[in-house]
């Protein structure tokens, strides 16, 4: 009878050891004697045992430490020894301005202004789809953090807000210019990487800016 079979949820509880002793004994007896349930029980245990036997460590990607080192060196540069709103704001600026990536990108930027970074109308036709999708992901992150920053704005001094906005404008200007270069040379992998790094820098800047009221 179907009702006598051990259902899958109970079988999982049996596997996880969360069945009461009496139900456990009944379930075990059933899976020992019912061919249909025995097959499922064996397959379930096999998956579980295989999962537990996966290696606990995998080789990390190349270059990861170098990226981490760069990030912690930037954070080391910006850690304020004397907490003050102005110092914190200055730290935010440093994040943006000490980056070699941004510096590289800014070499081709005439005069960065606060500009919204929006994909060009024909970008989807020119740029790699993976880049467009990644950019949309970054844009969503930026929008979310921007909203958090806006909600934190009343707690910040006007100088802090001004410095943050200037830094964002600098980064946006760099992105716009690099993006323009990428449109002219869509296959330039280095530019794609640099733009991604600059977006991540913008995200980090916004994250820190949004958290300023909590850290001061």
């Amino acid at each position, binding site marked *: 009878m179907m009702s006598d079979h051990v259902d*899958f*949820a109970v079988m*999982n509880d049996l596997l*996880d050891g*969360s069945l009461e002793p009496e139900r456990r004994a009944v379930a075990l007896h059933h899976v020992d004697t019912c061919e249909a349930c025995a097959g*499922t029980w064996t*397959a*379930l245990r*096999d*998956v*579980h045992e*295989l*999962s*537990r*036997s*996966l*290696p*606990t*460590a*995998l*080789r*990390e*990607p190349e270059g*990861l*430490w170098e*990226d*981490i*080192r760069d*990030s*912690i*060196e930037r*954070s*080391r540069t910006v850690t304020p020894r004397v907490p003050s709103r102005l110092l914190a704001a200055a730290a935010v600026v440093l994040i943006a301005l000490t980056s070699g990536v941004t510096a590289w990108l800014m070499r081709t930027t005439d005069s960065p202004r606060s500009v919204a970074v929006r994909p060009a109308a024909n970008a989807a036709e020119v740029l790699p789809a*993976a880049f467009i*999708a*990644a950019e*949309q*992901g970054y844009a*969503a*992150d930026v929008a*979310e953090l921007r909203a958090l920053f806006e909600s934190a704005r009343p707690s910040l001094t006007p100088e802090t807000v001004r410095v943050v906005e200037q830094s964002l404008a600098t980064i946006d200007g760099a992105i716009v210019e690099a993006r323009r270069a990428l449109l002219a040379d869509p296959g330039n992998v280095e530019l794609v990487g640099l733009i991604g790094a600059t977006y*991540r820098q913008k995200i980090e800047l916004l994250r820190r800016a949004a958290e300023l009221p909590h850290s001061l």
Partner: protein
Amino acid sequence: MPLAFEAAASPRPAGEAELIRRAQSGDEAAFRQLYEATVGHIFALCLRMTGDRLRARELTHDVYVRAWERLSGFRGDAALGSWLHRIAVNIVLADERGAKRRRARIGLADDEGVEEESVAGAGGSDDPDTRVDLERAIALLPPRARRVFVLHDVVGYQHAEIAELMSLAEATVRVHLHHARRMLMERLSR
């Protein structure tokens, strides 16, 4: 029951306390040694929980940057590996909010990221093909089921701990876990 990571990471590496002390005082070389001793575990966790190699790289990066920022507050009550592991779980789960929008940029079904090289001494099935099949099947699970499955069956968290970490009811955790196991059974039997 110790977490799989804790079991693998214990006993604490010789000299860990000294390396931590040096790193806390700003010694980057010491921090790098701590990184090298633990990164394989952290990357494996991030990769399995996201099913996305690029995202796992970014999250692993974030784990160590955050660890560096917070290292001065680490008092050594637990092994460094366990402390990092908790940071990683929190970062990956916090990242879940943005996962949907990112799913468009890197397909979860992408094979990249599942045929990873394991680190020597990190255990693993004797049959590499079976392991890769399972890793691939895990990467294909729905995101929440995948996270629950990895935390429970691979890492060793209990239902209640996962429920707390993911802000889910324990019953919901069980449903995701059972769903994940059923899907894995079906995929591996093909």
